[in-house]
Each structure stands twice: as structure tokens, then as C-alpha cells.
């Protein structure tokens, strides 16, 4: 095992890069104070960050080759680091790459690398250029820790680490005010999930006496029966953690706000990697979930509901990034729906393809925003395909994948999830219908976005804003991602008796075997028959094409369609625009009462009651002291009277008792 100690390099190279970049940042600040621009140092920081990412990508590929080259080897594991020895339990950390994490690794380092390159162009000239790369690298470090840790607690390090970086990057342009608030909101929402995560981990310790992920996964089977309820509770709590991180109902409202960060951040963190951490967690612990069907159903409901909320809200957004954000929420819902049906590989598949196409879309939107001088309102765009051809083409590819246009990556991955839901039947039927309905909405809003952005009249003041194509550092990553978004389906083609079908499922089968064994209890997993598979694929294709068409044509000449809706169904539109009023409900029903409670506690309870008693004791002493002064009136007679009375009482008491 010791020979795989280089795995430690994977997270720690980006960390080192981050430290370097941070140093550069402070160097830049100093240089600026002395009157220089300090851009040289900054650009070095960018290069270092990208170089580190390239190295990490190379290592990931190497790890993947190691695993792929030898099918006997299920996991590469580094030596372990004794982190916490708490007596009754202890936490040892090692870096593990198995089939599942190798996929995640490639996504993180691959997409991450592209986004780093992209950022060189996007962030050019920003005063916090070096700082941005420091944060970005730090994020990659945390994300890799999350994915590679052998222990749940090590995973939690990454889990909170990515949350921190998300916080920092959302608030990157804090001077504007609202990004800082959005970052804070994101962190707090994540913390709600983290609290559940922590409680879940305590339960796991109580059940399994360990936090080692593979040990837990392997001992689930043995604990079924005796500890089923506790395990289900732990699974539910951990899912609560996943809800926070992966923006599921009811904790999704931070993600749209998180768009306040620079767009590469939205692409990397809030689309491709961090938000999928919840999915990864559930996949990692798939036996635990397999053993808790009720929890799975809850997850399914949450996933479907989130998919619906996200998709329907995306319908009415004007901000291009908000559309993508709600779309992300919705797509994440699909992934959880996939997990709920036990379709582990389908969820992972969608995770991967989503990373491609949503990363692409975000980067594309970033390119648009860049070209439009930070304009994000689609109503003020239009006709951009003429000004930004490369962005336009690649954006189309992404949109196609998102809406599930046949043969694109999203088409296959979404379809597989829906197929599994369909097959599961029973209570999952309504979920399937919700999924299908969400797919309809998805196709619609995607092409609405494309139409509003790239087609129709130019609704901006062409004299003030001269849209221009972005530099090569930005368009190159777009092109690569476009190819991946289109061809990503090859990773896991549907079971149509064709070569290369279900490649991803087979690849991670060693990891999901334990879960499957519990889920199907020895029976064969259901596989769709060929014709059913074909019918479902056809249904998916039809939906995508029809509603993509509708969306595109409704908006290719402007947003009049929206106005029509607004005048026809104002309440509905308002409801959708505000994401089903979830956020305002929180503000009114949770935040405001808590805030009130804190004021009540601070003033009434603490100051007046508790401290009042303390100060009251002092005041009582002073007051009684003053009251008693009248006894000492200076009169010899009264003093003598007291003495006489005292002597008499002494006498009486002592003689009579």
C-alpha cells in the first residue's frame, strides 16, 4: 500500500498552489502599495495554479490507468495518518482511489483544469486575480480531500472546506455588498446540512465504531436487523447533509444566490463539482441507503420535488445565470432521484455529464457576460450569435445536452434515471411523472434561454456595449467541454446490446456491489427490456425535441411570451419567479422569529432577567444598607434600648430553651 503514497500529492499539490498564489496575492498588494501594478506576480499566480491543476489531472489519469490496467486492484490506498485519537474511537486518514473516486477525480481535475484555464482570461485585470486562483486551488484541495478520504471525517474536512471556498468565492466581489451576504447565506445553509452530517456521523460511530468508509460499507449487511432503524436514521441524517451541500429541497435557496460569485466559480463549484458532493456521499455509502428503503423513497421524493421546483423556477428567470442555477438545482434533483431508485451508476453518469454540459453552459454564459460588460439580464441581450460565434456554437451544444436532445450526453443520462424510476414502479410512479414533467420544462427553459440570448433583435445599446468574442483562453475550454457534452453519452450507453453499453455501470460495479446485494437481496437487478428501453428513449427524444422547439420559437423574437404569461397568470408567475416562495417563507417563518428570539434573549432574558437578578442583588444590598441607616440614629437612648432588649432576649432565650 505504501507505494501509493503519491496519492497524498493529489490534494496537497493544489493546497501548495493555493499557498503560493496567496503569497503572490499579498506580494501584489505590497507592490501596489509601493506604486507598482504587481500584475507580473499575479499572472505568475495564475500560471502556477493552472500548472498545479495540470499536474493533478495527470496524476488522476495515472491513477485511473493504474485501476483500469489491473482489474484485480479495486482501490489504491496511501499510508494513513492518525488524525484524531479520541480513546473510544479514532480517526485515521488515508487517500483512497477506487473505481468511484477515480471517476470523480477525473471530473474534478479535468473540468477544474479547464475552468482554471478559462479563468485566466475571465479574471484578467481583476485586482484580486491572484487571490482568486488561491481560492480556486484551495477549493480543488478541499474537493479532492472530500473525494479521496478513506474516512467519513476526512471527507467532512473536504466537505466543509469546499463550503468555505464557496463562501469565499461567492463573496469574492464583496465590495458590492450582496455577494458577501450571498456567501454568508450559502455557508449557513451548508452548515444546516453539516449539522445533520455530524449527527449522522455520531450515529455511525455508535453503530459501527468506526468512520472508515469502506469498513462501514462492508459492515452494513451484518447490522441489518439489529440496527436497521439506527442505520436508517443515520442515512437520513447524512442525506440531510447532502441536501445542504447539493442544494436539495428544502435547503436549495442558497444556490441561486451563489451566482453572485465570478462565473468560473459558478461553473466549477456550483455546477460541476461541489454541489455533486452530496450525490457522491450517497453513492459512497450505497449499502447504508440500500438497507433503508424508506429513506430511499424520501430521497426520491425530495429529488423529484427539487427537480420540479428548479425547472419550473428556471422558466421565468431573466438573469442568465439564475436560469442555469435553478437548472442545476433541478438536475441535482434528478441525480438524487436516480439514487433513490438504486440506479447508482445512472446518478453518477448524470453527475458526470452534468459536469460537462452545465460547466459548459456556465462558462458560456460567463463568456456572454464578459462580452456584454457584466450584463446578465437576458432581456437586454439578443442576437449575440453574430458577435460571439464560438461561444454561441458551444453554448448550443451545452443546451442540447441539458435539454436532452437525442444522442447528446444529457439525453442518455437523464433517460437512464427516468427509466429506472419507471421500472421501479409502485410509489415511484408519481415520481416518474414529475421527472418527465420536469424534463419538459427543462427543454423549454433551456431553449428559451438560448433564444433570448443569441437570437432576435439586439436589445442592448450597441453604442455603449460592443459585444465581442472572448479570448482563446476562454473559448478553448468551451470547445473541449462542448465536445464532451455532446459525446459524453458514450461513457454509459443504454443497454441496447451495442458495444460499450453500460460501461460506467460496469466500471463502478465493485463499489456498488454491496448496495446492490442488499437492495436486490440476491435477485437480479431489474433491467429494462430492449423494447421498453427503446420506447422510453423515444419518449425522451420526443419531449426534448418538441419542447425545445416550443421554447426556442416562443422567445426567438424577444420576451413577449413572458409578458403574456405575466398578465394572464400573475400569481403563478410571481410564485415561479420567486422559487415557490421558499426563501420568503424562510425569512418570515424561520429567520425573523429566530432573530426576534435572539433580541429577546439578549435584552429581556439576559439583560433584564438574569443580569437584572445579579445587579438586583447588588442594588438590594445597597438599598437595605441605606434603609438600615435609620437605626443608627445617633441617639444614646435608642442604642441603650437595643442593648437592653438584646440582653433581655438573650436572657429569655437562654433560660427558656
Amino acid at each position, binding site marked *: 500500500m505504501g507505494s501509493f503514497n503519491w496519492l497524498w500529492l493529489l490534494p496537497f499539490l493544489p493546497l501548495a498552489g493555493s499557498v503560493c498564489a496567496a503569497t503572490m496575492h499579498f506580494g501584489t498588494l505590497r507592490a501596489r502599495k509601493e506604486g507598482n501594478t504587481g500584475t507580473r506576480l499575479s499572472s505568475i499566480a495564475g500560471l502556477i495554479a493552472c500548472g498545479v491543476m495540470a499536474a493533478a489531472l495527470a496524476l488522476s489519469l495515472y491513477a485511473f490507468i493504474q485501476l483500469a490496467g489491473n482489474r484485480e486492484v479495486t482501490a489504491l490506498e496511501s499510508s494513513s495518518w492518525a488524525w484524531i485519537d479520541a480513546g473510544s474511537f479514532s480517526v485515521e486518514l488515508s487517500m483512497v482511489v477506487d473505481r468511484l473516486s477515480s471517476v470523480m477525480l477525473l471530473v474534478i481535475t479535468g473540468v477544474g483544469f479547464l475552468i482554471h484555464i478559462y479563468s485566466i482570461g475571465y479574471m484578467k485585470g481583476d485586482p484580486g486575480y491572484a487571490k482568486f486562483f488561491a481560492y480556486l486551488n484551495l477549493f480543488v484541495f478541499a474537493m479532492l480531500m472530500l473525494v479521496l478520504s478513506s474516512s467519513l471525517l476526512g471527507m467532512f474536512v473536504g466537505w466543509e472546506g469546499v463550503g468555505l471556498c464557496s463562501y469565499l468565492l461567492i463573496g469574492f466581489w464583496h465590495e458590492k455588498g450582496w455577494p458577501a451576504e450571498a456567501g454568508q447565506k450559502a455557508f449557513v445553509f451548508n452548515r444546516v446540512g453539516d449539522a445533520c452530517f455530524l449527527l449522522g456521523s455520531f450515529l455511525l460511530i455508535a453503530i459501527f465504531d468506526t468512520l472508515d468508509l469502506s469498513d462501514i460499507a462492508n459492515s452494513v449487511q451484518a447490522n441489518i436487523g439489529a440496527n436497521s432503524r439506527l442505520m436508517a436514521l443515520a442515512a437520513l441524517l447524512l442525506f440531510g447533509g447532502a441536501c445542504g451541500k447539493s442544494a436539495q429541497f428544502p435547503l436549495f435557496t442558497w444556490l441561486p444566490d451563489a451566482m453572485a460569485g465570478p462565473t468560473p466559480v459558478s461553473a466549477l463549484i456550483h455546477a460541476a463539482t461541489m454541489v455533486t458532493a452530496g450525490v457522491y456521499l450517497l453513492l459512497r455509502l450505497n449499502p447504508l441507503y440500500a438497507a433503508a428503503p424508506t429513506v430511499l423513497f424520501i430521497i426520491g421524493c425530495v429529488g423529484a420535488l427539487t427537480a420540479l421546483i428548479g425547472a419550473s423556477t428556471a422558466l421565468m428567470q431573466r438573469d442568465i445565470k439564475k436560469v442555469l442555477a435553478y437548472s442545476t438545482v433541478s438536475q441535482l434533483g434528478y441525480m438524487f432521484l436516480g439514487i433513490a431508485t438504486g440506479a447508482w451508476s445512472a446518478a453518477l453518469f448524470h453527475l458526470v455529464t452534468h459536469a460537462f454540459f452545465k460547466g459548459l453552459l456556465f462558462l458560456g454564459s460567463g463568456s456572454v457576460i464578459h462580452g456584454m460588460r457584466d450584463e446578465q439580464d437576458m432581456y437586454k441581450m439578443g442576437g449575440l450569435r453574430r458577435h460571439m460565434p464560438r461561444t454561441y456554437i458551444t453554448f448550443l451544444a451545452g443546451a442540447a445536452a441539458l435539454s436532452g436532445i437525442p444522442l447528446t450526453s444529457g439525453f442518455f443520462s437523464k433517460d437512464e434515471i427516468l427509466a429506472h424510476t419507471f421500472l421501479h414502479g409502485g410509489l415511484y410512479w408519481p415520481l416518474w411523472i414529475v421527472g418527465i414533467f420536469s424534463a419538459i420544462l427543462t427543454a423549454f427553459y433551456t431553449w428559451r434561454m438560448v433564444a433570448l440570448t443569441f437570437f432576435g433583435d439586439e436589445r442592448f445599446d450597441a453604442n455603449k456595449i460592443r459585444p465581442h468574442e472572448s479570448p482563446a483562453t476562454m473559448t478553448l475550454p468551451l470547445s473541449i467541454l462542448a465536445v464532451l457534452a455532446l459525446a459524453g453519452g458514450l461513457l454509459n450507453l443504454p443497454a441496447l446490446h451495442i458495444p460499450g453499453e453500460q460501461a460506467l455501470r460496469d466500471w463502478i460495479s465493485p463499489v456498488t456491489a454491496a448496495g446492490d446485494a442488499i437492495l436486490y437481496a440476491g435477485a437480479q437487478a431489474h433491467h429494462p427490456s430492449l423494447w421498453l428501453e427503446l420506447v422510453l428513449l423515444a419518449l425522451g427524444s420526443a419531449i426534448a425535441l418538441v419542447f425545445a422547439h416550443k421554447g426556442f420559437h416562443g422567445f426567438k423574437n424577444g420576451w413577449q411570451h413572458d409578458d403574456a404569461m405575466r398578465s394572464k397568470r400573475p400569481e403563478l408567475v410571481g410564485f415561479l419567479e420567486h422559487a415557490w416562495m421558499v426563501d420568503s417563507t424562510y425569512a418570515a417563518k424561520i429567520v425573523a422569529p429566530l432573530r426576534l428570539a435572539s433580541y429577546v434573549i439578549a435584552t429581556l432574558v439576559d439583560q433584564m432577567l438574569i443580569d437584572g437578578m445579579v445587579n438586583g442583588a*447588588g442594588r438590594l*444590598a*445597597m438599598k*437595605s*444598607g*441605606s434603609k*438600615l*441607616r435609620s*437605626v*443608627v440614629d*445617633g441617639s*444614646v437612648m*435608642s*442604642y*441603650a434600648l*437595643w*442593648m437592653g*432588649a*438584646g*440582653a433581655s432576649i*438573650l*436572657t429569655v*432565650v*437562654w*433560660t427558656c*430553651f
Partner: protein
Amino acid sequence: MITQDLVQVFDMLSEPAARMATAPMLALAVGVALYLLCEVIDLLRTARPIVFLGSIALSIFYELRILQADSAPGAVFDGTFIADGQTALWGILFLVGTLLVWAYSVGYYRENLPFKAEYDALILCTPVGMMLMVGANDLIVFFVGLELLSMPLYALAAFRRAKIESVEAGLKYFLLGSFSSALFLYGAALLYANGGTLALDALVAESNLATTGVALVAASLFFKVSVFPFHLWVPDVYQGSPTPITALMATGAKAGAFSFLIVRLTPLLPPAAAQTVAVIALVTMALGNLGALVQRDLKRMLAYSGIAHAGTLLLVVAAGVALGDTSGGEQAAWYYMGAYLFTATGAFGLISLLEADGARFTNLDALRGLAHSRPGIAAALSLFMLSLGGIPATGGFLGKWFVFAELVRADMIGVAVLGALFTVVALGYYLRVIAYLWMEPPPEGAALSNTQRPLTAGLATVFCCLGVLAMGLLPALFLDRMN
């Protein structure tokens, strides 16, 4: 007839034990006589301090001799007077207190005090009274001691006779003191009527008559040590008296009465007294501390503080009654009074210095920002306040410790806890003094006159500080002498 009696007295004195027992008091008595003689003869006037200090030194020497003797004299004069290690320790305490009071007196009277010699002679009388009290094993001896202490104090309290406060203090003290003496005498008479004897170790308080007698005697002692409800004179008299005399009343006089109370009288108290005395003690602590909390006059505040301390010390009596054993209580009382003597004398002494400095008022405001102009005085006064509050590293802490230890021994935990809580109130005003000294800005333009302070006062202050610290840090020095 008279000659025969005189011969008899000298016969008694010729016994080595009796000589040894009375030597400390005789030294002082001779000192008083010589001192007044020096005053009269012009040539010897300069020798007055030597006589004063010499007699005290001699007296201390004799006390030490008793303390270190292999066999202490014990009961002498037909068992009416006891001189042993314990009385010697108390005696040394009284003498040190007297000495300190004298040292502060030197600086206190800026104006040429008339009758200064009488003043000193009267001061020198008081320890004789105290020693008689602590050694008394007979109510007559005690009474003589009591009056020998009280009479000079009446006169001394009113010594600044041009000042109405001083005279009023003297008169009040005198009237109420006489009243308490009368109570004592009547109590003693009842005891005599009950048992036909005045010897303390033969007294038994079984009948109602005797208990009444004990109660009256106790009442008069409660007056002297100033506990509720016999304490009301204290603030007035302490405030009005010349400050060094206040120190003497607060420490020496109280110690004298207390030594008798704990050593001789406690065994006579009826069992019911355990509760009554505890209640009295707690009420005293409460009244003393609450009273002190609202005072702005320093002397009055310290007077109330003295009442509170008397209350604390009275807890020992309660514990002693409950335990039926005062051996621990005696030590606790000695230690407590010792620490209190250093701190209270030092504190009153410093106040007297400030008065002499020109701040002719003893208000708290006089202390405002004193640390800037008189850091030494401020530091010493703060130390005394901490000791009065019973903060460790000072004698006051260990004194308090021993008192509470007695309560714990007597299983009076609740009383101890209540007592402890009253001490918190006490710290409230001690800390306020420190706050005035160090944390308030000095008043503008109110520079104190830079009068020469007498060396004796400085030495006395240093001695008090050392005493407080020694009793706090090196208790073995004192405790080892007690066994």
C-alpha cells in the same frame, strides 16, 4: 493589718510563677509611672519615648518568656489569674497593637497636643487591662481589667476636646460602656448569688439564675466586641474619636474582650447559645457589611467593617459552643484578631496620616487617585483592604479560613456558607476603596501639602504590611507557637 496584707501580696509575688505571670503587666505599670515622672521632671522629658518603648519591649520580653517557658506559670493568685502560652500570645498581640497605635499617634497630632504625656500614659494602660481580661479566671479580675481598659479609652476618645465629634464620641462611649459594665456587674452578681463563687472554672450555668447571669455577662462582652444588637455605638464612636484611638478600640479593645469571650466565657454558655450566637453573628455580619456598603466616611466604613469582622469572629464562639471545645476556636480567634489587628491598625493609621497630611476629612473622596501622589500609602492601604476582604496571601485569608474550619468541624456548613456570602458584600466596599485609590483620576489642583511624615508612622505601616503578609504566607511562624 494593712502591712500584713501587703506582706501577703509580696509573699505571693515572691513565688516565681506569680512573678512570671504578672511581670508583663508590672512592666507596663512601672512604665506608666515612670513616664508620668519623666513628664514632671524637665530633665527627663526626652527620655519619654524610651520609657514607653522600653516598658513595652520589656513586657513583650516577659510574654515571650512565658511563651517559651517549659512550664508556664498557669493559674496563680489562688487561681484567679492564668498565665500560659495562650495568654502570652494574646498579650503580645495587645502590646504590638498598642505600640502601633502609639507610632501612628506621633504623626497624627500636628498641633502641639496638650496633655500628650497623659495621652501616652493612658495608651500604655490599656494593654494592662487587656492582659488582665485575657488572663482572668475570676470575674473580679476580669472586671478590673475591663475597667482598666475602658476608662482610658473613654478619656482618649474625647481627647481632642475642642472638637465636638471627639467629645461626643467619648461621652457616648462612656455612657453606653458604663451601661454595659452595669449589665456585667449585675450578671456577675447573679452568678455569685447562684454559686457563691466568682471563679470562672467553678461556675456552672445550670439554674435560670445563673443563665441569666451568664446572659448579662455575655451581653456586656457583646457590647465590647460590638455585635448585634450591641454594636450601634461603634460607628459613632469610631468616627468621632481621634483616629489612632479608633484603631486601638477596633483592635486592642476588641481583642481583649474577645479573648476572654472565647477562652473563658464560651464554656459557660448554655447549649442553646450555639444557635443564638450563630444567628447573632450572621445578623451582625449582615448589618456590618450592609452598613459599610453605604458609607462614604472612611472611618465609619471601617467601623462597620469592624462590626462585620466581630460577627465573623463570633461564629467561632457558636462553633465552640456546639463542639463543646474551644481549643480550635481559641487559635482561630487569635489568628483572626492578629491579622485584623495588623490590617485595621494599618488602615486606621494610614487614614490618620492622610488627615495629618491636610486632608482634614476622612471621606472616600480623599482617596481619589491617591495612587498618583502617594503610591506607597495607596499600595499599603490596598493590601490592608485585601486582607480585610480575606484575599489569600494576606493574614485575613487564613484568619477567615480558621474560622470557617471551626464551623466545618462543628458541622455548621450552612452557617459557613452564609458567612462566606456576606464576605462577598464586604469585598464590595473594600474593592471600592481600591478603586478610588487606583482607578479614579486624582482631583484637579488638590495637591496635598507635603508635610514631613514621622518616621514612626512609616515604620508602623511597613510593620503592618509585613505582618499581614507574614500571617498570610508563613503561617507556620505563628501556628507553631500555638501548640
